[in-house]
């Protein structure tokens, strides 16, 4: 009987959790006139107009493309630089290692609002304003430390004897690292890529500050729409639904690894 009560509670919570998302889905399938005209729990006049508009109007869909470009660049930079560093932290003691690790961590914790203004000046001065690479580099501020942190956790789980054996067998460090070590922690690499992707994807303030038109992310386009008069709720809801899709896809593919990532408490 007790078990049942728990499960009922959990199911109710999941219901509450899904309700706001369902409501947005509901709105996204209706036209603005229909939304403002009548209040219904299920869309009776479901239409894909909003989605079609977003996917055909370049001022909308270019936002998704821009976001995906800088997020991908950022994920690659983060992974490539963080992999060797995480190996160093998990295997070696060296001068200032702990302080270095702490300093990296503070950047994960630092308020983006503090960095937005100097970033704007920095990237203006080097002529990188409104480019994808600027946003990708700026997001490294919190994603590289995050990547080091998560990867270090996974690498510490691999016994050092593996490294020693490989070196005795005459493997050079780069060859060992790429052909033996990285395949061993590929789950960790997957989880890390996932979190880098997500955190760059969800960030709004820096991305908005560093872009004007050419690299404007979808998040900034959505907030612009909110402040505009004559708000089109159906369109906004559809745009919102589409921003959830990448997360949903990735979560499904990494559901088993994710639990482990969370278990390490390194999010």
């Amino acid at each position, binding site marked *: 009987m007790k078990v049942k009560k728990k499960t009922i509670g959990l199911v109710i919570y999941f219901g509450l959790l899904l309700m706001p998302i369902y409501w947005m889905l509901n709105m996204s399938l209706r036209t603005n006139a229909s939304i403002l005209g009548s209040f219904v729990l299920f869309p009776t006049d479901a239409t894909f107009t909003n989605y079609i508009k977003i996917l055909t109007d370049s001022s909308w869909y270019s936002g998704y493309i821009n976001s995906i470009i800088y997020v991908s660049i950022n994920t690659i930079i983060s992974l490539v630089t963080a992999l060797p560093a995480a190996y160093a932290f998990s295997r070696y003691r060296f*001068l*200032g290692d*702990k*302080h270095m690790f*702490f300093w990296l961590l503070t950047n994960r914790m630092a308020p983006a609002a503090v960095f937005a203004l100097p970033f704007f*000046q920095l990237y203006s001065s*080097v002529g990188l304003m409104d480019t994808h690479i600027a946003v990708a580099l700026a997001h490294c501020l919190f994603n590289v430390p995050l990547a080091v942190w998560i990867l270090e956790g996974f690498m510490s789980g691999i016994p050092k004897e593996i490294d020693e054996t490989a070196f005795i067998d005459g493997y050079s460090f780069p060859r060992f690292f790429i052909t033996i070590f990285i395949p061993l922690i590929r789950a960790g690499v997957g989880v890390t890529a996932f979190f880098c992707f997500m955190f760059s994807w969800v960030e709004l303030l820096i991305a908005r500050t560093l872009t004007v038109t050419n690299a404007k992310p979808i998040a900034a386009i959505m907030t612009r729409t909110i402040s505009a008069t004559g708000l089109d709720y159906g369109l906004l809801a559809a745009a919102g639904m589409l921003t959830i899709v990448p997360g949903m896809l990735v979560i499904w593919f990494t559901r088993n690894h994710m639990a482990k990532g969370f278990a390490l408490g390194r999010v």
Partner: protein
Amino acid sequence: MTLTLEWMEWTLPTAIFFSTIFLILVAMTIWQTVAPSIERRGFLPIPTTPGDRLFIGLLGSAYLFLAWLALTDFTLWIMLGIAVVWMIVVMRWG
């Protein structure tokens, strides 16, 4: 694409400030290489290395400066003296 430093709006006091911190870090690194130190326990609630104590000292000084600015109208030079004493106390007995 050239990296100019004009946008950073450097001033002499801030240049001195950051140079001092940089020199302290270099000195600490050399000291650590010449005479490696180990963690110990002082009056601070956690075991610390000299590097930890430097950080705690600097962060503490920052708070002291802010408190001084918020609560008093006296010159900052007095505060600088207090901060130096505080740094020495933390480094020596922390």
